[in-house]
C-alpha cells in the first residue's frame, strides 16, 4: 500500500513537471533575458525544495538530540541526501543561466557562494556519517553538524535582500520585482511537484535506513553466535 502511494505520488509529480515543460515552451521570452529566463521555473522550485529539506533535517536533528530516538536521525539523513540532490540541480541550472546572462559559468557572488557552501556543508554531513561506525556517536555528531549547517540556509535565502549581489532580486513577495499571475501558477505547480518528488525520495530513503538498521541488527546477531 505504502509503495503504491509512493509510485502514484512520483508519477503525478513527473506528469506535472512534464506538462509544465510543454506550457513553459509556449511562453514568450522575458524582455531582457530572452528564453533562458524560463529556467527560473525549475531553478527556484529546486532551491526551495532543497532549503526546505535542510530545515526539516535541522528540526529532525534537534529532535534526535532531545529524544535520542533513531527515527529522527533516519529522517535527518534521508532528507539531507534528497536536499543535496535538489541543491545540485539548482546550482547547475543557475550556472547554465549565468553562462548566457553574465557570460561566465560561475561568479563568486554572495548568493552563489552561500548556496555552494550550503551544498558542501551537507555533503560533509553525509561524509562524516560514513566515517563513524558506532551508531549513537554517529547520530549525535551528525545532528550537531546538521544544526551547524542549517545556519547557512537563512544566509542563502536572505543574501539577495541583505547584500548587493549580481544575482537577480526576488520576484515574489517583493516590491522590486513582479511575476505575472499565470506564470506564478506554473511556478507554484512546479514547486508542488518538486515537493511531491522530495517526499517520495525521502520515504524511499527512509525505507533504506530501516533496511540498514536491520542489517546492523543481523550482523550483531551473527557476531553473538
Amino acid at each position: 500500500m505504502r509503495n503504491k502511494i509512493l509510485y502514484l505520488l512520483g508519477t503525478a509529480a513527473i506528469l506535472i513537471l512534464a506538462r509544465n515543460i510543454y506550457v513553459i515552451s509556449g511562453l514568450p521570452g522575458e524582455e531582457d533575458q530572452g528564453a533562458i529566463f524560463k529556467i527560473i521555473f525549475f531553478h527556484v522550485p529546486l532551491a526551495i525544495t532543497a532549503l526546505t529539506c535542510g530545515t526539516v533535517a535541522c528540526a529532525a536533528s534537534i529532535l534526535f538530540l532531545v529524544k535520542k530516538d533513531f527515527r529522527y536521525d533516519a529522517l535527518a539523513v534521508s532528507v539531507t541526501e534528497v536536499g543535496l540532490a535538489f541543491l545540485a540541480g539548482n546550482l547547475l541550472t543557475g550556472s547554465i543561466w549565468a553562462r548566457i546572462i553574465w557570460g561566465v559559468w560561475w561568479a563568486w557572488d554572495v548568493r552563489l557562494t552561500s548556496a555552494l557552501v550550503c551544498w558542501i556543508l551537507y555533503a560533509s554531513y553525509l561524509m562524516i556519517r560514513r566515517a563513524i561506525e558506532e551508531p549513537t556517536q554517529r547520530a549525535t555528531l551528525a545532528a550537531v553538524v546538521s544544526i551547524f549547517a542549517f545556519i547557512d540556509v537563512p544566509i542563502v535565502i536572505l543574501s539577495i535582500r541583505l547584500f548587493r549581489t549580481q544575482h537577480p532580486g526576488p520576484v515574489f513577495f517583493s516590491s522590486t520585482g513582479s511575476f505575472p499571475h499565470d506564470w506564478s501558477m506554473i511556478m507554484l505547480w512546479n514547486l508542488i511537484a518538486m515537493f511531491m518528488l522530495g517526499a517520495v525520495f525521502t520515504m524511499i530513503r527512509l525505507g533504506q535506513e530501516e533496511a540498514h538498521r536491520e542489517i546492523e541488527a543481523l550482523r550483531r546477531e551473527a557476531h553473538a553466535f
Partner: protein
Amino acid sequence: MHVFPPIVLLAQAVSQDDIIREMGRLQRNYQFLSYGLIVAWLVLVVYVLMMASRERRLKREIANLKAMLEERQRK
C-alpha cells in the same frame, strides 16, 4: 526579447550582420535553456538510479545475512 518585423528593421537600418547576430543569440538562448532542463532532470534521474542500486545492494545483504544465520542455527 524582440523579434522585429522586416519593415521595422529596414526603417532602423539594421544590417545583415545584426540580424545574423540576433538570430545566433536567440538560438544560443534556446540551446542553453534546453541544457538547463536536461540537467535538472538528469540530476534527479541519476539520484533515482543511485537509490535503486542501493536498494538492490541492501536487499542482497539482508538475504545473505539471513541465509548465513539460518545455516548457523541448523549447525
